[in-house]
């Protein structure tokens, strides 16, 4: 990747991004879908975009998913 491509990637935004408020509001629903092996991104595409772009919300997602998985019996 050259320097301009890095800059392009850095400045990239996605209009589907729902923002932190909406993403956090449905985070529990989203995480349950992921934990159940369902396609959460298909049902909530704007949330998926946001969680990939926003570090703190992505971290909350990772934490909640880890919490839910800690309750699940080992496969």
């Amino acid at each position, binding site marked *: 990747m050259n*320097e*301009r491509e*890095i*800059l*392009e990637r*850095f*400045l*990239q*935004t*996605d*209009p*589907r*991004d*729902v*923002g*932190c*408020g*909406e993403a*956090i*509001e*449905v*985070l*529990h*629903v989203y*995480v*349950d879908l992921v*934990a159940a092996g369902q396609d959460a991104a298909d*049902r*909530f*595409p*704007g*949330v998926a975009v946001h969680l990939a772009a*926003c*570090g*703190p*919300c992505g*971290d*909350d997602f*990772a*934490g*909640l998913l*880890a*919490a*839910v998985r*800690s*309750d699940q019996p080992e496969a």
Partner: protein
Amino acid sequence: MRDGRYHDAVQPARSASPQLDEESAGWLSRLASEASAERAAAERELHGRLLRIALAEVRRRSTLTPVTGPELDDLAHQAAGDAMLAILAKLAEFRGESRFMTWAYRFVILEVSSKLGRHYWRNPPVALDAAQWERFPDRLGLDPHQQAEAVCIVAEVRHVVDTELTAHQRRIFIAIVIDGIPLNALAEKLDVQRNAIYKVIFDARRKIRRALTAKGYLDEPDAGQP
């Protein structure tokens, strides 16, 4: 970024009133029980689970925070306690869109996240408004061997930041992107919602991109790109 209150894909989930799973129904019944002994036992059990999750979460995030040792454990206990109060206060709002425990764990994860953001300012590695532009190439992930190109990119972005962004956008952009202050920490410092900071950065990125494109520095975006 859309400004609507609810995502159109979220709304159906909210109006569906799904059937509660057995475990979730059990939690709701026990936590709302009129028998005080049953209710107290459920509250103890829930608090124990919230504390376990809070302790695991502060450890998971420990490499990204200056908070350590007993202080981290204290923070987990506070997060579990505050989450417990919030859950009990909002029990009637649980609509069964997820498992009860996932809904409950969300409170404690968000408490940990918020409290760590607040603790950042007890011993911040970088002051607000430090404006460390010299670190920008590293933050972008530019190859240090291509120094000339990196210097040129930093100069272009800096010029746009200085001339195109509003004072508020510039301050937020520099704090988050240039100085690397965690978004949560900045939101706590400025006493605003996390989304307010995110939106400023989102809009600033678009503005910078438009300016660099107008100057011929970047190509026009593809159709469908913002």
